[in-house]
């Protein structure tokens, strides 16, 4: 543990982290090149000021309501409940947001912040393209030029989203270094940022990166959990027994979990991507198969080899194909406040089809992973149980890929 923080300056509630150094326990921090350090400090100050400003809050709320379509409903997935034969399965419908995923909750906050800071150019990294589309959308709405870095592999498997970003006026830069996936896109975005420090705002899409990003993205995404918590109380008069969400970097899960952290009776369950199986080595399960390390500005669990080199992640889902995880998840994992499990590519494919057929909801491949563990949990909890899963994205973007995998020519 670095420079021990004295007992009285450390948060005493699990939901009150990070501390002043941007640490969640030993995780998080600000591991960036010196060129970026002044920017990170400036961003932290600007965010703290904005957060306390009622005008910023009011502007956010207005756009969340009229532009994003908040609040998103909760929905009783009756036929899946019947199919699984146990606990009630409820979805938080964040796939109904404008642009089709939870990502826009965060993009809106960061782009409004960028405007307050007088930044005139937006950059972002994207995996599945959902964060790229959401960023390009909000950038278009405010007339700010936007460049999105996307791994070349992902550009290929997420073609519909690439075209959407282009329609929205964004420049999409395919990244060929490494395996051409999310981590390489993030490297390239950091390289662009270090070069264009004076006018550029980097909209990070997940609860990772240097402080203040993990806390800031969590705060913007916590609308998921705040709404769902109030909705469950109103509809059912009680909180769910478990909140379940898929995890790549972990922004939708953190957004769902955070308002429930102090509700100790509510289990928080994150589902990582097991790819072809954690035991095969071809997976993206950083907590199950990784060790603590330092990458992309923060200390967290990483897939790495014996020399500390980063191992490429493997997942059918471009949005989960990342060798790290947000530092707050690493912390909740070590503190045993949240449980982390995984689901394979095959399970996600199965759930994608099952949910579509039974509920008439085409889920993104990302939350289809979460659904696989909801199935087990429903049986475990039994009829009296209530499960709340975040349906964080819709699956339209995955239709071409799923068709290909099923051997269907479109």
């Amino acid at each position, binding site marked *: 543990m670095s420079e021990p923080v004295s007992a009285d300056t450390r948060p005493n509630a699990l939901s009150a982290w990070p501390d002043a150094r941007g640490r969640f326990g030993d995780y998080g921090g600000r591991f960036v090149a010196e060129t970026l350090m002044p920017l990170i400090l400036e961003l932290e100050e600007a965010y703290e000021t904005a957060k306390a400003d009622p005008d910023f809050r009011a502007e956010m709320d207005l756009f969340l309501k009229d532009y994003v379509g908040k609040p998103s409903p909760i929905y009783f997935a009756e036929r899946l409940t019947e199919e699984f034969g146990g606990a009630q399965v409820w979805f938080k419908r964040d796939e109904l947001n404008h642009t089709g995923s939870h990502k826009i909750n965060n993009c809106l906050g960061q782009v409004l912040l960028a405007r307050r800071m007088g930044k005139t150019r937006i950059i972002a990294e994207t995996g599945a393209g959902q964060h790229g589309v959401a960023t390009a959308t909000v950038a278009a709405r405010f007339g700010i030029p936007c460049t999105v870095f996307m791994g070349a592999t992902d550009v290929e498997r997420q073609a519909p989203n690439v075209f959407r970003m282009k329609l929205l006026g964004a420049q999409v830069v395919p990244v060929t270094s490494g395996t051409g996936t999310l981590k390489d896109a993030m*490297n390239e975005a950091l390289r662009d940022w270090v070069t264009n420090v004076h006018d550029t705002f980097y909209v990070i899409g997940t609860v990772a990166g240097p402080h203040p990003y993990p806390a800031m993205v969590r705060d913007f995404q916590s609308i998921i959990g705040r709404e769902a918590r109030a909705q469950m109380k109103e509809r059912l008069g009680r909180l769910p027994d478990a909140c379940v969400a898929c995890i790549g970097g972990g922004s939708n899960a953190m957004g769902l979990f955070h308002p429930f952290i102090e509700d100790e009776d509510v289990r928080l369950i994150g589902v990582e991507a097991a790819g072809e199986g954690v035991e095969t080595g071809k997976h993206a399960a950083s907590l199950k198969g990784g060790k603590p390390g330092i990458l992309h500005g923060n200390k967290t669990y990483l897939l790495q080899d014996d020399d500390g*080199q980063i191992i490429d992640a493997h997942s059918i889902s471009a949005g989960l194909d990342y060798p790290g995880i947000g530092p707050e998840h690493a912390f909740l994992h070590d503190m045993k406040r949240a449980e982390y499990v995984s689901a394979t590519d095959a399970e996600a494919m199965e759930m994608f089809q099952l949910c579509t057929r039974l509920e008439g909801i085409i889920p993104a491949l990302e939350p289809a992973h979460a659904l696989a563990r909801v199935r087990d949990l429903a049986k475990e909890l039994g009829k009296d149980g209530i499960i709340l899963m975040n349906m964080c994205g819709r699956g339209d973007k995955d239709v071409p890929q799923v068709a290909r995998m099923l051997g269907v020519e479109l």
Partner: protein
Amino acid sequence: MTNRLNTRFSELSAYNRAGFVAYMMAGDGDSQALLNALPAAGADVIELGMPFTDPMADGPAIQASALRALEAGMTLKGTLAQAAAFRKHDKDTPIVLMGYANPIHHMGWEAFAKAAAKAGVDGLICVDVPPEEDDELRAALGKYSIALIRLATPTTDDKRLATVVANTSGFVYYVSTTGVTGAGSGAVTEVGEAVARVQRASGLPVAVGFGVKEPEQAAAIARTADAVVVGSAIVDAMHAGGVAGAQELVKRLSSAVHAARR
């Protein structure tokens, strides 16, 4: 504390000569041969790159070099072994390791510092560990008398510069431009002013790098800076022309730097 870095910069200063710092990547090509040949080619200080899969602050040349080195099986331990082999027959030329935090963190800050000291390493530049995060690393390096060399950049204002130069030793690395390694360097006049500012704040020699490629450009910087660092160009020369090609470039660059103040 007398060490090779202090001794080397004192010598250069006594001759009113700027130093030439050559960067090379451990494990890319016959790197041991190049490492051994660098002092005779005119390198006053050697920066030995520790390859990493995700070099966020590096441009295409050093990224590609790191991936080639890893592909060829280079590791942090292997890098230290090359430094140790060099140190057996060169007792004077300082070696500074340059790279990223994760492989070092994975080995353990203290285990790394101990192994590096044993290999005859004199300093470390860890790109993604800023002053706010380097307490553990600094303590470990201090225990084994290895200099922690920090980076100052065009975005480092006076207030921050005080934080950057506190606890640094050996020299300060001034990054001449906002950007990745191998991109264009800053205007020479601006670099001169910045070097003077960093020298005043730190009381240490200042080496300037990022984007220096040509002998004339290196010489212009050498008129004000205590040393000039070239990396991407050497890495490219090594890849294209092997040890002989890299050696040849180092000779041209070092001659220009050494003659700059005559």
